[in-house]
């Protein structure tokens, strides 16, 4: 564990500027639910033909929180997630990230604005090495073009060195630096999940959005993931977590929203939500309350 914690310290130093407020005071306030929200989404509606997939869904994520979004199958979690990240265009809704409104109309603009996501079914760049995958994540925060690459300008070389160093740090941070030169698709399932998280972190996100990161993981891998996510939060990042695994959500999240049939049926602290009648009905059916 000592290795991991020094890694974390290194990455934290790197992030110091970004997280100075977040890690300490900000987080304490965040757990209490006050202060400026990192992500504030209101009144999202999305209709697919005759199906109202989302009706008036909203949430507010405080800085430094892990925010859970749960619900039974087909509740609209992934739809909501795809709306926030620009994959689907909503019929209505307002979106504010870190005090600045953003339009989730183009996926790459959302990443630029500061939301990095992972995918429910892992989507790595399989033929590239783990390191290259993370280096791709730096794309949005770097600027060299064809000219720099062809003429190997000083600026380009410096930038490349920086990209490589940061990517290695992130691989170390998630604990898979020993596989840096392995092709991504040769990694084990759990490591691929970690790699996807490292790649997302490489975009310097304000909000890390994870779509069912524990799907398909065994119990030990889930424990590892949980520790990793807690680390990321403790280093000042804000996380939105969509998850099926209620146990993971309840143990990890600071706040939870429950969706069912595209509607928000509960919102609050995990313990309160767990006792909510509507939630129990949604999961187990009426009559179990």
């Amino acid at each position, binding site marked *: 564990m000592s290795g991991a914690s020094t890694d974390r310290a290194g990455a934290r130093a790197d992030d110091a500027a970004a997280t100075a407020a977040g890690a300490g005071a900000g987080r304490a306030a965040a757990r209490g639910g006050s202060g400026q929200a990192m992500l504030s989404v209101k009144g999202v509606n999305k209709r697919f033909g005759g199906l109202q997939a989302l009706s008036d869904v909203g949430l507010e994520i405080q800085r430094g929180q892990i925010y859970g979004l749960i619900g039974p199958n087909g509740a609209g979690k992934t739809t909501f997630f795809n709306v926030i990240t620009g994959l689907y265009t909503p019929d209505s809704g307002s979106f504010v990230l870190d005090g600045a409104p953003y339009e989730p109309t183009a996926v790459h603009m959302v990443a630029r604005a500061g939301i*990095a996501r992972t995918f429910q079914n892992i989507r790595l760049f399989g033929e590239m090495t783990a390191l290259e995958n993370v280096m791709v994540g730096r794309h949005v925060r770097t600027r060299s073009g064809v000219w720099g690459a062809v003429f190997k300008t000083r600026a380009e070389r410096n930038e490349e060195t920086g990209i490589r160093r940061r990517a290695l740090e992130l691989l170390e941070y998630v*604990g898979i630096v020993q596989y840096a030169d392995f092709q991504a698709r*040769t990694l084990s399932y759990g*490591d691929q999940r970690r790699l996807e998280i490292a790649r997302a972190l490489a975009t310097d996100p304000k909000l890390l959005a994870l779509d069912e990161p524990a799907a398909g993981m065994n119990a030990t891998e889930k424990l*590892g993931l949980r520790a990793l996510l807690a680390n990321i939060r403790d280093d000042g990042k804000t996380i939105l977590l969509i998850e099926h695994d209620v146990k993971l959500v309840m143990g990890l999240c600071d706040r939870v929203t429950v969706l069912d049939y595209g509607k928000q049926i509960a919102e609050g602290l995990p313990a309160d939500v767990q006792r909510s009648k509507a939630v129990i009905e949604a999961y187990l059916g009426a009559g179990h309350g």
Partner: protein
Amino acid sequence: MRSLFPQLANNPKAAYAATAALAVVLAVLPLAVGMAGNAWVRMLDFALLYVMLALGLNIVVGYAGLLDLGYVAFYAVGAYMYALLASPHLMENFEWIAELFPNGLHSSIWFVVPLGAGLAATFGALLGAPTLRLRGDYLAIVTLGFGEIIRIFLNNLNAPLNITNGPQGISNIDPVRIGGVNFAKSLEIGGFELQSLQLYYYLFLVLTVGVIIVSVRLQDSRIGRAWVAIREDETAAKAMGINTRNVKLLAFAMGASFGGVSGAMFSAFQSFVSPESFILMESIVIVSMVVLGGMGHVPGVILGAILLYAIPESLRYAAKPLQEAIFGTEVVAPEALRMLLFGLAMVGIMLYRPSGLWPAPKHGINPAGNRGTGAAPGLGAQKS
């Protein structure tokens, strides 16, 4: 250097020696081959043109994973651009151009190469723009159509204004001139005579080396990684903040620019162009060079280009005498045999080397089957 001899990465001395040896071989090659006859030097020249074409297409197909079946169109754009800018054709047909250039229309190579690259890149972006949302089969069909459109334009733009001279093509195209050296004539250096074909060889070699350097450097850059990311998973690439529209257009434009340069050189080399040189079959051959050589791997693509050009060409010379020696008479026409063997070779390669003759080296395939991380017991414990 590093990417030229990856095995020698840890031994810079050996890498330099290997590079020097390769340079000597490449420099002496046309002289040695020249002794066997000019036809062989001509083959070398064409092989280099095809290497440039294949490397250009490799950016689009190999790096960015966009199947382009109309690549020859950019070759045509470059070739016709040079043909129009360096032949009497336009002056014969347009009085005002003749008045503009009383000494005849000639263009320097220093002007033509960048212009050819730029013009072809523009056409590349023009093709790219409407196809941005297409993938796979659909993209292939649209690009194929684009290639045909360009060829048909070239074939029919002789009326009402005679711009391309239609199927007859444009002739009397200037050879390349650099300084006082006319590449159409042989050059004497200290009593040693270099044929025109050999001069062109060195020119093409320089350009090819340039194209190789650009290819390799691009691959190993921010843009190159973005291309590969799009090839591997476009949605994920977008989610990483890559503006896939711009990056794809850039791939089309960069790839096309190599084709444009190669086309301009083709035109100067042949001193004649006609639409016949830019048929669909050419596009298919160039795609085959990239695919059979090893998509996305520069040395593989070079090998593919050389083999796929050289084998059918040598069969042209060897097929007849070989058959006569074996059967006493010509059984199959050389042209038919060429295509037959070509097809057979392709089937064979696809069966036995599906990722190409010389694919990019695979990194770190883990024979032990790594599971979990093992780095931090608390984080990623071993599975077993």
